[in-house]
């Protein structure tokens, strides 16, 4: 696994990601409402929320793929120009790679776009900042891969060149346990190399997964109906029983009712 080291943060350098009062609506439907969030270099943050809470839309705003009101800056630059400078790696929630190409051709293509030299198979494999064995065999066509394998290739495409800011939308979806563990190890290595990541995740179901993620991520940002309702450690998020027969989610110091999503998937945000 080869992850490019990023220069240590400079006091005069702007924050890696600064989101201020971002709002986004589709017609009358408000998807993001006054979202603010800052990430310093080396931060790994989870963006957690129920379906439709605005996680994917926020990542698309930061990736420069959708317009919004408010400010989002990546190292002081607007998202589109940051992407053009190669500062952002992005994995969409749903991506279907063409079936007629091989894994190696996908890797080589995205490596060339990022200016990474890939003249032979060894360089191809080394261009991917993921553990050995994470990628399926380079000569296999995408059409012959399972959903989880395709997801791993798409993930590799997003991480090639070790961009300073990585935006991953439910990266572990379709991955088995072994490859999920590899993914989180990669995130740890990314953080150690000075990289920054914002990772959208569905509500954390098990305490075991939460414990694993706590070793990877510094923070968990909880989105509810487009608003940030909690920003704290991963372990501060924990399941909570339904309250009085009416499933709710609440954060300490925040008494706003949360959407009913099923008692077993609920969690509450503890003290920061």
């Amino acid at each position, binding site marked *: 696994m080869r992850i490019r080291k990023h220069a240590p943060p400079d006091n005069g350098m702007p924050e890696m990601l600064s989101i201020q009062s971002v709002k986004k609506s589709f017609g009358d439907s408000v998807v993001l409402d006054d979202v603010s969030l800052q990430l310093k270099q080396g931060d790994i943050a989870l963006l957690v929320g129920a379906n439709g809470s605005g996680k994917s839309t926020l990542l698309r705003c930061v990736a420069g793929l959708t*317009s919004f009101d408010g400010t989002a800056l990546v190292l002081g630059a607007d998202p589109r120009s940051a992407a053009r400078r*190669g500062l*952002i790696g*992005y994995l969409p929630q749903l*991506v*279907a790679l063409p079936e007629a190409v091989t894994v190696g051709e996908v890797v080589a293509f995205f490596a060339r776009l990022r200016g990474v030299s890939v003249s032979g198979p060894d360089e191809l494999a080394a261009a991917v900042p993921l553990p050995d064995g994470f990628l399926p065999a380079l000569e296999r066509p995408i059409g012959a891969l399972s959903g989880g394998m395709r997801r791993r290739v798409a993930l590799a495409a997003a991480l090639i060149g070790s961009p300073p800011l990585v935006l991953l939308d439910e990266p572990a979806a379709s991955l088995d346990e072994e490859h999920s563990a590899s993914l989180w190890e990669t995130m740890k290595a990314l953080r150690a190399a000075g990289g920054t990541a914002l990772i959208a995740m569905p509500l954390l179901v098990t305490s075991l997964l939460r414990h694993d993620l706590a070793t990877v991520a510094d923070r968990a940002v909880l989105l509810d109906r487009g608003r940030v309702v909690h920003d704290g450690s991963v372990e501060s998020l924990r399941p909570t029983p339904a309250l009085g027969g009416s499933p709710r989610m609440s954060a300490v110091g925040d008494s706003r009712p949360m959407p009913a999503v099923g008692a077993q998937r609920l969690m509450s945000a503890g003290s920061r």
Partner: protein
Amino acid sequence: MSYRAVFAVAGWEFRLAVRGRLVMGTALTFTVVCVVATLLGLRSLSELGLAGVGPGTAALINLAILFPPLMGMMLGANSLSSARERGLLPLMLVQPLSRLDHVAGVVIGLVGAVWLTIGFGFGASALLLASVAGAADIGGLLAIVASALGVAIVAVALGVAVSAIAGSRLQALGLSMGLWFLFAFAIDLVLAGVAASVHLGPLGLFVGVLLNPLEAGRVLMVLASGGDALTLGPFGAYLNVTVGAAGATLAVCASLATWTGLSVLAAWAGVTRREP
């Protein structure tokens, strides 16, 4: 503009296109009909020569003006719209390249695929002609091929523009087929119908040709293959009197270049303004 990124995208699009059924099917069909047209036209070729714009030449010109542009428009229409629907476009647009780089790469890659098809079809024709044709005839064929390559660029650019603007892949494919029908047949039929009654005159017809990239391509092929401009009827006569064959060639080339430039700009605007 990042040429590295443009050619990376071009290589990717070319690879995807030539592995698709559309290109393989069209290349095969185009080659077969080119061979058939050449065999049927060999008799007239031996009497008139290719440069005489006989039936054989006319058949090759009509094939070149119908098949590759249809293929180019459909490939172009499928490009961005398909990538958008597959979720691939967001992944591509976050890479270190501008929207214009991306559009240029897509157009170049798909033009390469259409050129390959043209190469197969006319390559087979050239092999058949080699035994009976003289140097002037081969020159005429090369002129037709060169013109067909130019028309292919316009067709792909138009298709990519449609792809960038259309709401879905199906809509893009439908629109591109509609455009092809409009340029290949409908405008001619309308012009033929109204020319006498509204007194378009030679100048009106000339403008009509310039506004139709496929017709401009057909005129270019006739002129480039050494045919007398008079073979184009009233329009040809008008050309001879006013700007001459060289001027007409320049005019239709300018028309094709303008269509290409405007299409690429439209595609770029579509990709820039529309959320992937």
